[in-house]
């Protein structure tokens, strides 16, 4: 692929649309009296996290891009740029995103970066912008290795990343109910993503999709939104601070405090870093699996229902 080809930075170009859409959502909630909630400090925190994400991208973006371009010299093929290549890249990148996102919930080291996105008890378009500042430290860029070696140029992959991120903006809303069945079957939608942000036992660790919900259906993590169980948004144990610095770094600090405890084995210290969030050496905390198990024990009728 010629180095002269330049792809637009779709995320930055979408910023005006983000602002207009949030104003539209706020207006809709105000006029209709439904479709979600906004709260001043929560909104400010989400927007500052978004701005911080852009800033850290400017400062640390070279790490991922440097890795990609280093890897590119070892690519087996050069697939170039065409509509077909971009469509194929988007599909593979979306599959890569699914696994990156799933690891973001199932491995504490990656969760430490992703947790801030789930730290709001609200679910509106500003929540979409509550993005990580520490994604570079997770090493999740490694998951793009197969695509680059297959011949997808780093610029193509970054372009697809951007489109995927912009797609995911509009699904952070309660203002849209359920869409036509065919669309809900194929694509990630507000309904599916509401489930993903739920702290209800049945909704934990579900619907990791970026753009296509088919990955969750394929890998067994799809849970439909239940009419009889409204989504309770946020974390299992919610944050008691709106301070963006605390939001961005609290789980990293938690990891370092846990591994620094005296008397642990090396295996236990590693588990505090890489086991599921909620793992503890003394059983004093619960993982998602344990929370679901306890919920079913307390509510036997719920056994076998979606997500449980």
């Amino acid at each position, binding site marked *: 692929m010629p180095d002269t080809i330049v792809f637009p*930075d779709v995320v*930055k*170009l979408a*910023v*005006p649309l*983000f*602002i207009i859409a*949030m*104003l539209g959502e*706020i207006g809709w909630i*105000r006029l209709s009296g439904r479709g979600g*909630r*906004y*709260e*001043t*400090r*929560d*909104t*400010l925190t989400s*927007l*500052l996290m978004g*701005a911080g994400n*852009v800033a850290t991208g*400017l400062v640390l973006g070279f790490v991922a891009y440097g890795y990609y371009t280093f890897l590119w010299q070892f690519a087996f093929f050069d697939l170039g740029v065409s509509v077909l290549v971009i469509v194929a890249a988007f599909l593979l990148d979306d599959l890569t995103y699914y696994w990156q996102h799933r690891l973001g919930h199932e491995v504490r080291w990656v969760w430490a970066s992703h947790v801030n996105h789930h730290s709001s*008890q*609200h679910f509106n378009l*500003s929540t979409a912008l509550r993005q990580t500042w520490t994604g570079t430290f997770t090493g999740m860029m490694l998951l793009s290795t197969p695509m680059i070696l297959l011949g997808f140029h780093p610029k193509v992959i970054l372009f697809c990343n951007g489109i995927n991120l912009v797609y995911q903006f509009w699904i952070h809303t309660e203002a849209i109910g359920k869409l036509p069945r065919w669309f809900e079957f194929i694509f990630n939608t507000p309904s599916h993503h509401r489930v993903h942000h739920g702290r209800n036992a049945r909704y934990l660790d579900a619907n990791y999709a970026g753009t296509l919900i088919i990955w969750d259906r394929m890998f067994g993590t799809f849970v439909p939104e239940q009419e009889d169980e409204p989504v*309770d948004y*946020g974390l*299992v*144990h*919610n*944050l*008691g*601070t*709106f301070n963006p610095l*605390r939001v961005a770094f*609290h789980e990293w*600090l*938690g990891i370092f405090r846990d591994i620094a405890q005296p008397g642990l084995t090396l295996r236990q210290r590693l588990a505090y870093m890489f086991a599921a969030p909620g793992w503890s050496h003394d059983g004093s905390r619960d993982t998602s699996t344990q929370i679901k198990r*306890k919920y079913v024990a*307390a509510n036997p009728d719920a056994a076998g229902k979606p997500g449980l």
Partner: protein
Amino acid sequence: MSLTLLLPLVIFGITLIVVIVHALGWSSPRAFADEKDAARAWLREFPDDPPQAVDLSTDRRHALLRLPGGGAGIVWSFGQDSVARRLGPGLKLSETETGIDIRPADFTAPRMSVALDAAGATRWQAQLAPLTTPQTEDRHA
């Protein structure tokens, strides 16, 4: 989009949205309706620990809970929602003009300013007093 355009746009966008949300009256903090409401908010985070007693602050934004086994918990309004924590050793307590300040050793909930009358402040301080000094293990026990 160049940084010289992006930066003012982001600052303008954040300011505009936050000002509008505030102007719409969506800054008002939640107050618990009563002790049962505070207990429900607690159970939302700790369903396995039903509180035995609930002591509401005068503005109904904080509640101190007595837990089974003698433990203590606190639930408080956080924006329009709530947050709850079990309270452990290492608390710092201080009196204020309107009640007490609680500073747990918790990076995610560093401070709670609780509105209490004199009697309430005495009750809360009495319940929290055992947690304000670090517990030490008796290695000979």
